[in-house]
Every structure is written in C-alpha cells, then in structure tokens.
C-alpha cells in the first residue's frame, strides 16, 4: 500500500494563508471551516536596555497544518460510528453517510483537522485531494504555496528528499499518532520553549461554531 504524506517547510512559511484559501475554494468551504489552517507561533521577551531602548528576544514562525493522515489516527479511534476511517492508501476519510455529527473526533484530533459543518451537520476534512492524486496531481494547497514551502509525495520519497523529522514545537509528539508529515523546523523553533512561545492567532484558526 502506498502511504502518502505532506512536507512542510516552516523556515520559509510567511503565513500568507494562500494554502488555506486555495483549499477552501476547491472544497467550497464556508466561513469557519478550514481543512488547512496556518498557526502563528510566537514567544518573546522584550527588554528595555540601560539606555531605554527596547530590545526584543523573539521567536515567530508559522505552521501550516492540514490533516496529517496519521498511522494511528485518534479521530478514527474516537469515532463512535466508524464514519471516520482509514481509506485506500492510508488516507483518513469521513463517510458522510455514517457521520452522526457528534464532533468527538474534533476533540480527539491533536491537530484540529476534523472540521464541523453546521449546515450539513457532519464532519468534513482534508482528503489529500484524492481526486487530484488519481489524476497524478498534487493537492491544491501544495501547488498554491507562494514560497514553495509545501510538498506532497509518498512518505518514502519525502523522507529521502527531506529527511524524517516530524516534530516541531508545539505540535504533539509524532509518536502519539504517527502523522504522515515531514517537517523542516523554523530556526526559531529551537528557542520556542525557552521563550514560552504559543499559538497566538486563535481567532484566525479555531472553529467556534
């Protein structure tokens, strides 16, 4: 079985959210639903020096996160109806005919991937643009990226191109669910914990409905 994955280069992501909107356009998503979200991680210690000038010690970087189509997806484990399931090629999918709209997968997923559609009363999520994969194309977010910070391929190919790192602060440890994503960390991420960084753009990424 082929196992696909995303690659994300956080070091050059500007946070422009073109990926988010390209995805919304392809999937006709109304306001509030984002299969791909861009999280702004930021932490700092501004200090006034002896001469009264402000000196920043700051980290800031972006994380573009869709569904990582995990090996052990907690959304699938949590789903009471088995609507959330692992389909062909390891793609995690929602069966709209089975979904009961309980939103428990939304709680269970450590990446915030499953998105509730209040009009339809069911969950929706990234499907790796399955139709595009069949046509030999890459997912729409990948080809939209202005900085060429996103890529898509088989995990095997991605690992040989970009290495195997799957972790960056503050994503949950990859051992938890086995996400199919290879990540190049922003250099600032090394200092993120020290500077008490956190996601600061909640109003831009959360679905409150």
């Amino acid at each position, binding site marked *: 079985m082929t196992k696909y994955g995303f690659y994300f280069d956080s070091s050059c992501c500007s946070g422009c959210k*073109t990926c988010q909107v390209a995805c919304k356009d392809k999937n006709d998503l109304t306001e509030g639903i984002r299969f791909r979200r861009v999280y702004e991680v930021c932490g700092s210690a501004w200090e006034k020096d002896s001469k009264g*000038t402000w000196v920043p010690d700051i980290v800031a970087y972006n994380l573009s996160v869709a569904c990582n189509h995990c090996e052990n997806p907690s959304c699938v484990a949590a789903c009471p109806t088995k609507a959330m399931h692992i389909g062909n090629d390891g793609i995690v999918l929602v069966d709209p005919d089975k979904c009961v709209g309980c939103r428990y997968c939304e709680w269970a997923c450590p990446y915030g991937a499953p998105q509730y559609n209040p009009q339809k009363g069911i969950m929706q999520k990234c499907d790796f643009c399955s139709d595009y994969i069949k046509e030999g194309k890459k997912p729409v977010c990948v080809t939209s990226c202005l900085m060429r910070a996103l890529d898509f391929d088989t995990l095997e190919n991605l690992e040989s191109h970009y290495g195997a790192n799957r972790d960056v602060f503050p994503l949950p440890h990859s051992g938890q669910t086995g996400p199919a994503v290879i990540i190049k960390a922003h250099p600032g991420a090394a200092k993120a914990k020290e500077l008490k960084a956190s996601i600061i753009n909640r109003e831009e990424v959360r679905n409150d409905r």
Partner: protein
Amino acid sequence: MAGQNRREFIRNSAVVGGVALTATGLLRETFGYETGEVLAAHLPRNGWVYAGCPAHNCGGRCLLKVQLTDGIITHLETDDRPGDSPEDPQLRACIRGRSYRRRQYHPDRLMFPMMRTGKRGEGKFKRVSWEAALEKMSSEMIRIREKYGNEAFFVPYGTGSYSHINGRWPAVRLMNLFGGALDYYNSYSWACISKATPTVYGTAITGNQRQDWLNSKYILMWGWNPAEMRDGTNSDYFLKLARENGARIVCIDPRMTMSAVALADEWIPIRPGTDTAMMSAMAYVIAEEGLFDKEFVRTHCIGFDSTQMPKGLEKEESYLDYLFGTFDGEPKTPEWAARITGIPSATIARIAREFANTKPAMLYQGYGMQRRAYGEQPVRGGCVLAAITGNVGNHGGWASGIARQPGGEPFWSIFPTGENKVKAKIPTFLWSEAVVRGHTLTEKEGLTGAEKLSTSIKMIWAVASNILVNQHGNSRKAAKILEDESLLEFIVVQDQFMTESGRFADLILPACTHFETWGLQDGWKYGEELILLPQLLEPYQETKSDYRICADLASKLGLAGAYTSGLDEKGWTHKLWDEYRHIRFPDLPDFDAFVKSNQGVYSVPVVKPAISFENFRMDPEKFPLTTPSGKIEIFSETLFRMNQPVEIPAVPKYICEWESPFGPEAKEYPLQAIGPHYMARVHSTHANIDWLNEAFPQRIFMNAADAKPRNIKDGDRVKVFNERGTIVLPCRVTPRVMPGVVSVPQGAWSVYGKDGTDFGGNINTLSSERWTPLAFGNAQHTIMVQVEKYKA
C-alpha cells in the same frame, strides 16, 4: 460587519428609490448567478481557462486557472506551467486571487446605475437607466465645461481596477477628447521615492532584475515587506532563494513582518520615521572607520566630502560635514541615533559594518517609510548608503531608491489616452486642496504646467478609486469637502462595489469585473511577462466594462468614432498586444493564436538578469548619469538651490517629524500609528471578502508593553483616537510590533457610527492631509494616537 452594513445600505437606498428589488435581491443573496442566466455563445461555458489574476493595485501579477462549469466559475487554480525555475518561475496567485470567487459572486456587487436622492454622503440613491445616467453625466460635463472650462474636471488617482483597458485610463482618454482635464503627477504609493530617487541618480530605473538577488550576500530589508504587500509576484520567493544561496537577510522595520518571519535572519525594530537617523549613523560608522568604497566614491559620486562639492559651493555642508557635525555640532554617532531610533548603538554600528564589509550587498527600501513627513530623506539616505559602499551597477548589489527595473518599461498602462490640452498638473495628493482653493494653488503647492489654475475642481469622475474618502489622508475632512455642494458640483463614482467614496457620489456607474471583460497586464515593476485576461463571463446584471461605459458616454458627447476607433474591448486588447511586440517583447506570438492556445501568459525567461548602472559603473565619464553633475549626487545642487535647507536639505538628513514621540503632541497621543499593507487586501479592495477577513480580520496590533498599562487584553475592542478622529476595532496583543508603535492595517472600510466613530477601523480616519515638502506626497503614516479599552 462592513459587508452587512453595506448590504443594508443598498437595500435602504433601493427602498428610498422605490424600486422593487425582490427578484434581483434574491439573486444577490445566492452565492452565484441563478441558473438560467443567459450566456453569450462566444464565451467558454465549461473547462479550464488560463487568465490573469485581477490585480487591482496589487504589486503582483499572477496567473489564475479558472474552472468554468455551465458558465459559472466553480474553482480557481493558479499557474501550473511545468518547470517553475528561477529564470521563469510560476506566477502563483496569493490568497487574494485565490478567493476571487467570493468577490466575483459577492451579493453586494453594484448592479445598475444609481442617482443620488438624499444629501451628499447620506447614501440615498435611486436606480436609473443607463440612458438617464449617461444623459445626466454628459449634460453636466457640457454645463461645467461652459461655466468653468476644462480645468474644472478631474479624474483622480484610482487603482481599484487596471489591466490597460480597464480602470481610469479609458476615462482619461475620453476626458482628453472632451478638451482635457486637470491632471496630476506622482501617486499615493511612492510620491517621495519617485521624486527623490532621481535627485541622486537622475533616473527611477535603479533596480536590477530579481534573479540577480541570488548573487547578493547581504540583504537589508529596510521597511520592505514583499511577502505581505506582494511587491512583485515571487519577490519573497527570490529572497528565499537568495538566502539559500548564502545571503544573510536583516529586516529593519517597526513590525516583525511576515517577510521578517519567513526570510530574515534578524529583525531590528526601528521607531517609525527615524530611518534617516539610522542611515546617518551607519554612514557615520562607515566613514569614521574607513569602510566605504573610496575609489567608487571618488570616481562616481559628488558631495561626499568637502573635496567633492560642486563649483562655487565648496564651503557648503558636505555629507561628511553633516555626519561629523561640522556645521551643526552634532556628530551623527550610533549613540545619537540610538536615542532617536530606539535601536541600541552597538546594533547600529554592527549593521553598518556588516553592510559595508559584506560584498555585494543590497539595501532594499520599502515604500512605507517614504509615505511619511519627510519621506524624501530616507530615500536619499538609502541611496547614499548603497553608493558609498559601492553597491551600484554590480551583480548582487542594489542602488536602492525606487528601483524600477531595466527593460521592464512600461509597467503602468499603454492604453492611448491622447493629448491633454490642459497642461496644469497638481500633485495627486493635493486634489482636495484643488477642490477647496484651486485658483490659489501655485508652485508652492506643487502646481506644474501653469502659473495658476483658472478654477477649482468642479467635477470629479472617480473610476475604480476609493481615495475620495476612505484612502485619503484625514478622511473625515475629505468627507466634509465632498459634502459641500458649492465646491464640487458633480461627482461620478464608477466602481464594482458601493465604496465609502461611492456614498458621496451624485451618480454611480456600475462597472463589471475583470472576468467579465478583456484585459491585459504586464509584470508591473518586475517580471518579463505579458498576461492576458480573456472575457470569461457576461457582465453581471446591468454592469459594463469601464471601457464600454466611456464609449457609451463618448457617443452621448458625439465623440464615439474618435473614442473607439471602431474597437471593442477585445479589439483594444489585440491592439495593445501588438503594441507590446514593438516596445518590449519582439517575439510575442500572434494574438489570435495566443488566445486560442489558452496559455494565459507569455513570459521571457531571465537568464542573464539586467543590472542598472552597469555601464556607468564601468566608465562614469563615458556613461554619465542624467543628474546635473553626471554623477551620483550625495549632495544635490538642485535641492540646494531650492533654498529650503531645513525641510529640503541638499544632503540626506534626519528631520524630526511634525507628529512624533519627541514633540509636545506625544503627551496626549503617545503612540505612533502605522498603516501597513495587509495580506487580506489590496488597499481598500477585497475589504468585503469573507474568506480574507476570516484569514486576516481587521485589528490593531499592539505590544504588551503598551497594552498592559492600558489594561488591554488580546481580543479586546479598543478605541484609537487623535484630534482628527476615532476608530474602534479589536486588538491583537503581539510582540511582533515594537513598544510605542501600533499598527492598523490600511484599507479597511469605514463604518461610521452616529457620533462619527469609525467602527470599521479605517486608519485614514486618524491620518493627516499634510503633504511632504519636496514631493508634495502623502505623509499618511505620520500620526500619533492614543489607545484605550473601548466601552460601548
């Protein structure tokens, strides 16, 4: 919120007009057109069509791949040409282009001509026919021409729509056929930099093609934020490549911008309006430590030191005299600059050394710093730093200044507008002065082409322009000027949405979108490409293309033949396409064949990037500059002769701004407010698009050091105010803006409450109409404000 208010507003205006809107209202409430919309047979109904991304006044020029299903746009993709090399990169559209469906099928789009029924600015309109609308407009034009003459007409700066055949150019062509109109020069974007750059280099073409950035080893992104403002499609991508090639990138900016996050190795926060102080201190360190390119300065520059002064001015203040304080007793040391800029002196000295010692190096100036009180100074200061370090005319270097690229001309519009018989020109920002006191304007207010004007402006025809109110400095004052019917006798606003400017119109003309007509765009400031915008859809409701509106008006005025030359929008596109073959791209394919091929873009790979001043660098005697001295003018005799040494010095100087943290105004209004470009908008265009507002809601950005003492928490609604106005908007508390500075992204649409409070969060409610001394440019970013927690 703004969108809703506007929707209500249009409904209200329709009620006032007594027009039943039920059927069309229903249509507008739906996402797209209703099924059964009749589409012309010549338009594609299904499949993928490559089309230029409607750029408005975006710095990028991109390609969209439009999916049509039964004549409706169902999906947008972007450039997917194989290859994507640095020589010929894909022109990938950003979030604004990708959300264009939400604009194209927006329920608030204007649908038919409307005439004002209430007072000016009240926003009450009634629907009228095109016949009645154009009859009214032509009769007003004839009346005003008879009463005041052609100087009474003005087609203001407007960038909400352009693709050569669209936007204000067709209106200018008609006005010129009608006898001309008062013209303007420079722009809201880069008034100071377009004026000041030639005082150093004699030209505005000071940049290199971007592929050359990959040769640079050190890049100062000075107030430059290409990722967010889209300063050229792929500019941020080229910087990424330059960095991968080993360039160190340092960002100097009051904000840790998206560009700083994605591209810079270091961010140095600087107090807005003090860039020239930092530049001067850098030059001081470079001069003091002998780090400048002595040979280049000797052979290619004048005015650096007293040995290089123009004849007869040997005793005047040279640049070194300024730096060392020979005349004013104030050496421009890093310690001096630290107090002004808020940057530690050691950092200033270190950046100076890094910049001077790393070769080749680029100092790229953004345009935000020159939309300020003495915006001419940092432009000249940046150019001088580039010059004294010998980074002019070489690969990997950068002469600084406005930096239009060689070979890239023309980048604005080549639509033939004809000859304007009115020779008088005003600085574009001073249109409101020309409305209030046109006949008193002189060269002191930047009037050119005439000693004085015979009349104030009496009729404005604003095409794709929101500068009448929303985007003008001190927009509340501008609104008062527009309200006064004794000043402007007729205002026409031609646009796609009911903008804040539109509210003040006497006549509204609804224009169609780029997808509904033909157009053409080149790579603007950068990029060797020509992009086609083929018509994909029938114009919505009763809308027409800007060109068609003008052509119909021309026939009302009896000018139809002269105006159209028998060409429609596609005909003009064809004609301009062929024109490009003569002026820029000799190998351009046949128009019809290109349209048929469905490629969308014609691009020329840049294998050997062009460098400005290459010849001049090689041999300054044989290839002199067009400056009076033929050299790089660190000291400008021209400026010296203007005899205003305090505000227009002959060498670049730091001048304390008229509103600053150092003046008495800081007591009441202690925070500097800047209005940067926002990813969600192109100026005020796109301000009503849900997907964009979801991604980037309008907010004020504030450092915790300023928020905490004011008891403001992240997400709180705050009141931002000064003596010109008050805005209310949510607050994002973030360390990514320096203490003492707040950032209110420009371009949000004003939504005024009863007491005049602007709940839309438009920074121009707070900005000033005062202009800069040399360029007569807008200084809208120079404002002081106070911020409080908002209590309803």
